[in-house]
Each structure stands twice: as C-alpha cells, then as structure tokens.
C-alpha cells in the first residue's frame, strides 16, 4: 500500500519536500486550498521531483460556497440537480476540469463524485451521468471515480452492497473512496462503520480495480487487509478525516491549533504536556519512533529537555514526522498474502495496545487522538472482513 499526500492548507512546501525525500509518491491537489495558477505551477514542480499528481475536484457538495472552490472556472456558478446532470453543464464542467488536469500535469484523473447522504437511485443516476460524460473528456483507463459516502451510508451494509453491485457495471478501473467518519470523530469508534468500509474497499478491489482511500489517518492502516492500493493523508485533521463542512464558507476561520506528536507504535498522538509525563517518569524513550521509520523531524523532543519546553519542534516538524512515519507504516502494511497482512495487522494491534497501556500507567494519554479504543474497533472490523471475504481474499490477492 502507498501513502499519497492529501493536500491541505499550507502544504506546498511540505509536498515538494516529501516528494523529494520519497523519490516520488503522489500528491492529490486541493482546489479549495490552491488557485488555478498555483496548481499549474505545483503540479509540474512535483512531477520534476518524480511524484505523480492528481486533482480532487472536491465536488462533494455541489452547492458548496467556500470561496476557495467557487473561484475556479470549473465550479458551476448555478446549480440545479436535474438541469446540471442531464444538460450540457456537466460536460462543460468536465471539459474545464480536463484543462485543469492538463495544466497541473496530472497523470491520473479523479472524476467528481457527490456526497451521498444515502445511496439511492438518484445518487446512482448522478454518478452514471458523470461516468458517461467523462468518456468524452478523459481517457477512462486513467480515471478514478469518486465514491463519497456519508457516515450513515457507511453504516448501512445494504447501501455498501448497492454500490458494489452497481459498480460492477461501470466502465471504471479505479476508485477514490472518500468516507465521512461517524459523528465527525477523528478516530472511528464504530466497528460496524469500519467493517463496512473494509467490505466496500475489498469488494471494489475484487472488481479488478485500483482503490485509493482519501482523507485517511493512521487508523486506516487496516485498509491494507482489504488490499487497498493507497491511502491519502496530510497535515491538518481536516485532510486526515473527511469533514463535508470544510467545503462550506466558514463564518470564522480563526481557530487555535494544538501541537501534537505522533507516536507510530501506538497509533496515537499526544500533546506535548503529556510527553512531559513520560519525561517525568524517565520513560520518554517509550514514545520515540523506531529509527527504521527514518523520521528525524521530532528528534528535538528526545534531546534531553522537557518536551513542552522544546522550541525546535513546530507544526511543520509535527506534520513531517507524522507523514514520514505513516509513509513507512503504510508501505509495510500490505503483505504478499491476505493472511500475512491480517497477521501483521494483529501483531501491530497487540504491540500497540500493550505499549499504550504502559503509557497510560505513566499518565500519558492522547485524549481524542488516543488509540486505546481503536484497537478493538480495528480488530472487530478486520475480523468481520476475514469472516465475510477471507476465503476469497486468500485466493484473489
């Protein structure tokens, strides 16, 4: 499995740096956060560094009014569902998007997909109109169809299977899955939701397609068990878990952000005052990332001083550290067979759970980014996948 960069606010420099460090990779550009001109410059610059570029049209909410989106020429200035998807406006939009893709030197093309409060005939009709129209503007073998599902849709096994049964008939060779987390939680605490996401991704993958899951965080390492090809993640939380309201014009954009340190071995993030608790107990070493992950971005936290007093660890360092660690974890998550991948996932759950318990004993807690509940959630979801699709995935991997 590969890690793609999900472009978030302020990620220009970061994406270029990571592309250079990784000798390639793939960045999914965000029109919400970039002007047309910026995408036209950033795309080629990423390509020069050996990276692949895709552009997410972010047409999840066609009536979205975020100024970052409405500034773009492909974004419809007027929108009426019937008129738009049945008339020439859709073709105009796709034609404009194709130009954007060309300018950004995209090697593959993400087709728009609309957020599904519920998967129903209307939603299918919209996507079938997009796919049918896209054939006039894009080489379909280079396209990914967006499937953006609400948390409620993802909680419904019936709706997931409606998507799978319909997708069998679509001339699409790759999917870009965008899942809304339940109750807007960063780490998902609903095993049924996660089991359905695994089922959906595995089902799409078994259609001989490529599957990329967008807006992912470390919990989605379990998607390796569904044989997913890539997950995309980025700097801020809103590119690590899909929030539909991010595409609406905010009343007030000012927001205080806290600095978090990602501890990859426990799949949790901690605010620096909680690292101090480990420091007080003389066990800060427990939190240090394995050198094999090759992240030196957080070294300053482990240089001997009290972590919260370290001045050399800032937001860019936290983001780089998170992405570098996740890059390695993602690369190691998918194994040559389904069983090996499931076993590797379980080993990471056991090791992580044991270490996190030890950290809790020291008073080190990750608050809403603590993975303590996530271990059981992931285990339950992967267990459901093994029962539902284990026999097939053992044979079609």
């Amino acid at each position, binding site marked *: 499995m590969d890690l793609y960069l999900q472009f978030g606010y302020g990620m220009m420099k970061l994406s270029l740096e990571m592309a250079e460090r990784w000798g390639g990779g793939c960045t999914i550009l965000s029109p919400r956060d970039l002007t047309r001109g910026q995408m036209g410059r950033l795309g080629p610059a990423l390509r020069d560094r050996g990276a692949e570029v895709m552009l997410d049209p972010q047409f999840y909410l066609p009536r979205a009014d975020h100024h970052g989106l409405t500034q773009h020429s492909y974004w419809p200035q007027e929108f009426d569902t019937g008129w738009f998807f049945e008339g020439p406006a859709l073709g105009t939009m796709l034609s404009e998007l194709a130009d954007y893709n060309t300018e950004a030197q995209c090697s593959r093309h993400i087709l728009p997909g609309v957020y599904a409060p519920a998967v129903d005939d209307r939603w299918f009709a919209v996507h079938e109109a997009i796919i049918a129209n896209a054939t006039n503007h894009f080489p379909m073998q280079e396209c990914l169809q967006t499937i953006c599902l609400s948390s409620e849709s993802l909680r419904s096994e019936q709706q997931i*299977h409606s998507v799978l049964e319909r997708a069998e008939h679509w001339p699409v060779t790759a999917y870009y899955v965008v899942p809304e987390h339940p109750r807007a939680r960063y780490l998902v605490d609903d095993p049924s939701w996660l089991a359905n996401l695994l089922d959906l991704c595995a*089902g799409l993958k*078994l259609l001989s397609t490529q599957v990329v899951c967008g807006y992912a965080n470390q919990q989605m390492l379990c998607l390796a068990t569904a044989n997913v090809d890539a997950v995309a993640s980025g700097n801020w939380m809103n590119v690590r878990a899909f929030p539909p309201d991010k595409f609406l014009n905010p009343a007030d954009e000012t927001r205080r952000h806290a600095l978090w340190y990602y501890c990859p071995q426990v799949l949790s993030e901690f605010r620096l005052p909680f690292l101090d608790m480990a420091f007080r107990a003389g066990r800060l070493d427990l939190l240090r990332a394995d050198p094999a992950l090759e992240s030196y971005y957080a070294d300053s936290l482990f240089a001997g001083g009290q972590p919260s007093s370290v001045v050399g660890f800032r937001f860019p360092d936290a983001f780089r550290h998170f992405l570098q660690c996740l890059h390695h974890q993602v690369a190691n998550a998918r194994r040559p067979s389904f069983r090996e991948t499931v076993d590797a996932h379980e080993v990471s759950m056991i090791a992580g759970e044991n270490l996190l318990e030890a950290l809790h004993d020291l008073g080190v807690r990750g608050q809403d980014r603590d993975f303590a509940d996530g271990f059981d959630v992931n285990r339950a979801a992967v267990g459901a996948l093994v029962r539902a699709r284990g026999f*097939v995935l053992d044979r079609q991997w």
Partner: protein
Amino acid sequence: MDIPIREIRDQIDGLEIVQPLPGGGQKVVLLASHPRFGRVVLKLVRPGADPERAYREVYAVSRLGSRHVPEILQVGVLDVGGEKRLFLIEAFVEGRTLRDVLRERAHLTTEEVLELLDALLCTATDMETRRLVHRDIKPENIMYDTSGRIWLLDFGICRHLDLPSVTDSDRPFGPHTPGYAAPEQFRNVKREIDVRADLFSIGVVAYESISGRNPFREGARDPLEVLYRTETVAPDPLKIEGDSQGQLSGFIGVLCDRRLSRRPRSAAIALAWLRALRDTVVAKQA
C-alpha cells in the same frame, strides 16, 4: 390430469405413455416409451400456458450440451382439438433425486458432497458460457442415475441473459423456490441476476447435503419467513468431516452468501477453487 393420450399416440410416432411424473404448473410431464429412444420424458405445455418458457427451455438445453443435463431428443407441436401445444421429448434419467437420497440418509458423505459440487459447478460453468441461469437448483431437480452419475433437471424457469425476460419486471417476486433462491432472484432484481444466483443455490444444496438441514427453511413458519431469513441470516459455519482446514466449509459459506458481491464472480472461478481445495480434505479411511 388432462392428458391427450390419443393425440399423443397419433401425432408422435409410436410413443406410448407409461405413467405421469411430477410436473410443474406450466407443463404436464409423462414417462413414455419411444420406439427409437426407449424410455423418454414427454413434456407437454398445459392449455393456456405461455409456450415461451418451454421454448426457452428447449433453447437453453439444446445449446448447453452439458454432460450433466439430459439431452432434448425431439421438439414439436401437438394439435389437441385445434389447440396447438408445444411438446418436447428428452432423455429419461432413471434413478433417484437428491431429495429422495436425503430423505433416506439425512446427509451425504464429504466425498459425495465434493462430487456433487463438482458436477453442479461444471454444469454452472457450461451455463455461464452460454449466458444461462437455471434459477431452480434444488434437491428435487438433482438426480442420481443408476450408475451414480449426477444430472441437473428442469430448465423450466431458466433465464437467458441476452433475451428479454419472460417475467414481468414489475412483479415484486421473480420465479423462485424459497430456501434455495438468492435474494436478488426472488426480489426480481433482473439487472443483478447472473450465474451467481445459481452459485447461491448450489451452496445451499451443498449445505443441506452435508448438514441434513436447509439453513433458511428449517423452523420457518412460512415461505415469507424463509425469504426473510435468506436476506438476513448467515448460515452457521459447517463442521465437515475431513475438512481439517475448514476450506470446504468456507467455500460453501462463500457460495451461499446473501451478498452477491461476496460470492465468486463466476462459476469457472468457483469450480477452480473447489478443485484446488479438494486436496485439503482428508478422505475418510475405509
């Protein structure tokens, strides 16, 4: 039963009716003696029945050429009092149905189930190649002849995926047998019906043949509850003698999964998986 014996004798050279056989709503089925073919089965469309289904059956079986499906020997039209009634004559398979066997012995051995699955999946593979879906695979339509060879009978509600459907698409239920039909089949979701509907039925037949019970029918109050269970219940995993790695049990579970997308995508794939897993099943020592 309305059997036009005189017309049959007069219009189908030398055919003698031996006895009635269990038939369906659309056709009268008779055991007969034919001067050239010996014992045969005569199927005669009932008065007022839509002959299209019978034509489809002829079309399907004659194209199939499967070693597990009785050959159609003759097709014609009988004039009964001025009314034209389609008939077909097919080879007679002498033996017992799987239902008869299960009534007698409760369940089959592991080796017998492997043989049964192989024969049914071979036939499903033949049907898949010709774009046919049987839609009524159940113990009553599976026959063991006197030499032990397995036959699949009754293509009366067979669907040809490239031809317009005979069934009204607006009907809430498609033709089916509760407890063996896949959810997409009895829900009459035509777009989704393909060979995987037959794979579901084959899975249920295998499940019943091993355990002696149909997981959806047993204990159900009525056919509607059977359908409800088919859509909502995952059968308990089977414990199969000799299936030390659980591969055969897993395979049967995948076949009769209520979710279409979780079943094997084709009969050919299912057959290949079955043959690959056979080595993992330890035959019972004599």
